[in-house]
């Protein structure tokens, strides 16, 4: 009798949190789904692509093209894929490089546009690392010009000095690129030796705002005058043990950073003053790992541990929109978010490579209906390993900048030795207008 009682108590203890927080994911009933994949092209070596990762936020130009990227991820942290470090003596670009690509919906194909190392005048060689990825946002202005910057994995764990030149990573180079003329302008490196973790372009002021990965230093470059301002480590947030990866810029050019007291620090672009907002973000980490701003200037964000929130800068009203898989006690790393304003939805791929997550809910296409507050878990994406950028186009198609196993038709792509390989690609999701079709 005592044993049975113990079992009942144990079961209640395990199950209660799931009921207590309302709607939560049922991992047992999740179906597998396969989405169209569009490869990041370029960087071929010995007849194969060397690319295996992508970490940037993505953007759409007025012609409907979706701009994303892929990289070989080479950096301090690791040499991913089947390659080893000795290849750097032979590869034309040494080690660490990235391509900017686009997906053209008219042709339903992806294309390579440029390669980042040579565009930024940083010639990586066997000793000097290049930009193994773009981590920050790829952004566009009203004239469809693109702005992006370089990154090298784990550059933040090592303190770079001129002492070890040329082994140092030079730093995240800023590029302004006009696809219509193919003209690339290298704008320099805002924080020497520091990779760029996040950035936005404030077109009204002609200023690029960004943060470095090492110590989360905030910087701004006025493009017309090339005036650079560097500020303190305002985005430092020590609850994240390694580094901060995100900042937000609203439609008025105000920038936001998660801070060490659990709220947001707001930067006024005109007075250049910082102010802590009297709000507390949800979750244990109280931060944001992805964000999107609506045309009405409402900020939507998701924390590193999976709490979705919205914030109105005009009223300072913060709303907790629930946990991405309905399990507030279960961290679920989701560094991507897309907004469909017309259909009033947020899209995510919940659970991705990185910070703590529920393994059974890895790579789940998730929809939050903002009208009802209801979450829909559409299924687990086949081949998926990670996604760090997403957007919803005007025609309601949703794009995820992802990496993972690549399918061509029903066949998984393999390398020359027959092993499945990881590739960066854009995933495209065509959602139903009626979400009840997903039930």
């Amino acid at each position, binding site marked *: 009798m005592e044993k049975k009682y113990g079992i009942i108590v144990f079961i209640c203890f395990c199950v209660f949190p799931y009921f207590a927080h309302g709607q939560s994911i049922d991992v047992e009933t999740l179906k597998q789904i396969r989405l169209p994949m569009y490869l990041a092209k370029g960087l071929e070596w010995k007849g194969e692509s060397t690319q295996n990762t992508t970490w940037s936020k993505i953007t759409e130009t007025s012609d409907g093209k979706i701009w994303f990227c892929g990289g070989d991820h080479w950096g301090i942290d690791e040499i991913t894929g089947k390659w080893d470090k000795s290849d750097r003596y032979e590869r034309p670009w040494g080690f660490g490089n990235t391509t900017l690509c686009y997906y053209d919906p008219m042709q339903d194909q992806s294309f390579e546009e440029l390669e980042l190392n040579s565009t930024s005048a940083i010639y990586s060689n066997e000793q000097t690392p290049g930009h193994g990825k773009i981590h920050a946002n790829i952004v566009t202005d009203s004239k469809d010009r693109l702005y992006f910057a370089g990154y090298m994995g784990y550059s933040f764990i090592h303190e770079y*000095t001129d*002492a070890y030149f040329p082994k140092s990573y030079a730093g995240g180079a800023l590029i302004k690129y006009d696809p219509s003329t193919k003209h690339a302008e290298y704008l320099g490196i805002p924080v020497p030796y520091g990779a760029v973790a996040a950035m936005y372009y404030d077109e009204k002021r002609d200023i690029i705002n960004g943060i470095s990965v090492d110590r989360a230093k905030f910087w701004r470059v006025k493009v017309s005058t090339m005036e650079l301002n*560097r500020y*303190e*480590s305002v985005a430092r947030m020590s609850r994240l043990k390694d580094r901060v990866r995100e900042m937000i810029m609203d439609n008025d050019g105000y920038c936001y950073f998660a*801070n060490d*007291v659990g709220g947001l620090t707001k930067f006024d672009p005109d007075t250049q003053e910082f102010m802590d907002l009297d709000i507390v973000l949800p979750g244990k980490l109280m931060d944001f790992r992805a964000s999107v701003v609506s045309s009405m200037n409402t900020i939507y964000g998701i924390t590193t541990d999976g709490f979705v929130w919205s914030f109105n800068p005009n009223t300072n009203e913060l709303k907790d929109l629930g946990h991405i898989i309905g399990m507030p006690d279960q961290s679920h790393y989701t560094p991507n978010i897309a907004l469909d304003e017309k259909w009033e939805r947020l899209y995510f791929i919940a659970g991705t490579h990185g910070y703590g997550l529920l393994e059974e809910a890895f790579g789940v296409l998730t929809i939050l209906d903002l009208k009802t507050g209801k979450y829909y878990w559409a299924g687990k994406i086949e081949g998926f390993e990670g996604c760090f950028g997403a957007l919803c186009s005007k025609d309601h198609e949703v794009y995820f900048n992802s990496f993972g196993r690549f399918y061509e038709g029903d066949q998984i792509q393999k390398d020359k030795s027959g092993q499945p390989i990881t590739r960066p690609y854009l995933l495209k999701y065509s959602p139903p207008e009626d979400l009840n079709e997903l039930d």
Partner: protein
Amino acid sequence: MKNSIQHKLVLPIIILLFHATNVFSQRMGGLDAGSISKVLISNGPQGPIKGGESAVTDLILMPDGWMYGSTKATWGAQNCHLFRIDGEKSEHIINMTGQMPGQTTISNLVVGKGSVLYGCTSTYNEILDKKDYEGGHLFAYNPGKKTMDDLGIIQQGQGINCMAMDSIRGIIYCITYPAGHLFSYHLETKIKKDFGQVMQPWRVEDLGRVSWRGVPKVLIVDDAGTVYFSTYVHEKVPVWKQELMDGGPSYYSVYAGGRIFRLAFGDEKPVFTGATIPSQKGMDSDQLYENGIASAIRASDGGFWCGTINDGFLFKFYPSTSTVINKGKAFQYWNLKSLCYGTDEKLYMLGGRDEDNSWLLCYNQVTGSIDCLGWPDNTSQCNVIVADKNGKIFFGENLRHSFIWIYTLNK
């Protein structure tokens, strides 16, 4: 039974290994993770210490067992504070700007007779540049009585960069900023005295931000009441004979830094001791590399351990003989900005650039070994370290939302 125990142990071991790997991968370069804790000094938007007001400038262990700290306002914030911390919690003491409007920085703290805390104030470089600042104050805070006394302005329009206490004679010495004048203030008579400019500072604009370099950052006082500091002198370098031109100069005038000067008690003017701090030759006249003393602490043999600004050398200075002994450096960076003794009698040092990562370094006085122990966190940017009586080392951060990082030795 044995099998059952083994099975029960497998999962915890896997979890432990996972976490150990995680910790290692996230904290490369860090001090032993198990021995670090932290206390937030900033209280957030509600205050009393708001964001931007918590950059710690100094820490000092007082006889009541509390560590007393000072802050400065950064990036447009307006208030600086005194606080205290016992290793677990932080308590706000006083908003110093509320007491002395316009003062946004407490730049230094010292302790005097009767366990009274003395401090000096300053403000932003941008305000000093506009020349509409009333001047930095000296103040006294009595922790026992919880009273604060404003001792007044030292030099009109000038902040105070650093201070030292001759507690035997009841005299505070301080250096003004940016003017670089050495002053004394007699606690009993309240008479202040200007010993003149000891450094003509460089005005530097770096990324649009103005600052002055070369102004002494540390004052040392020995038992005889002699004050020591490092500064620059003009040196004349003869022009090569083959480069001499008719009517042209016969020499170049260059700044030579790291010269240790002294002002003996009763003297009217500081004089060069003949001692020069360890320097990397060829950089000491560069405006971006201040060649001076960043930190000093009294040694048991009558000397002073000192750290240099631009090269990060540890050296010992013997006032009685004006001798400098270079002990080397533990890492490639400059700025050995704070020193303290651990309970293991080793000398602990804080190194790192002004607005960058900070490392804890260690010098074993017995073996002469000098080591870099790592950083408290890969985002920590600290200004000062102090040890308490229990062997804990406190790091004071100087960020918008600053922590005191607490490193427990021997764990």
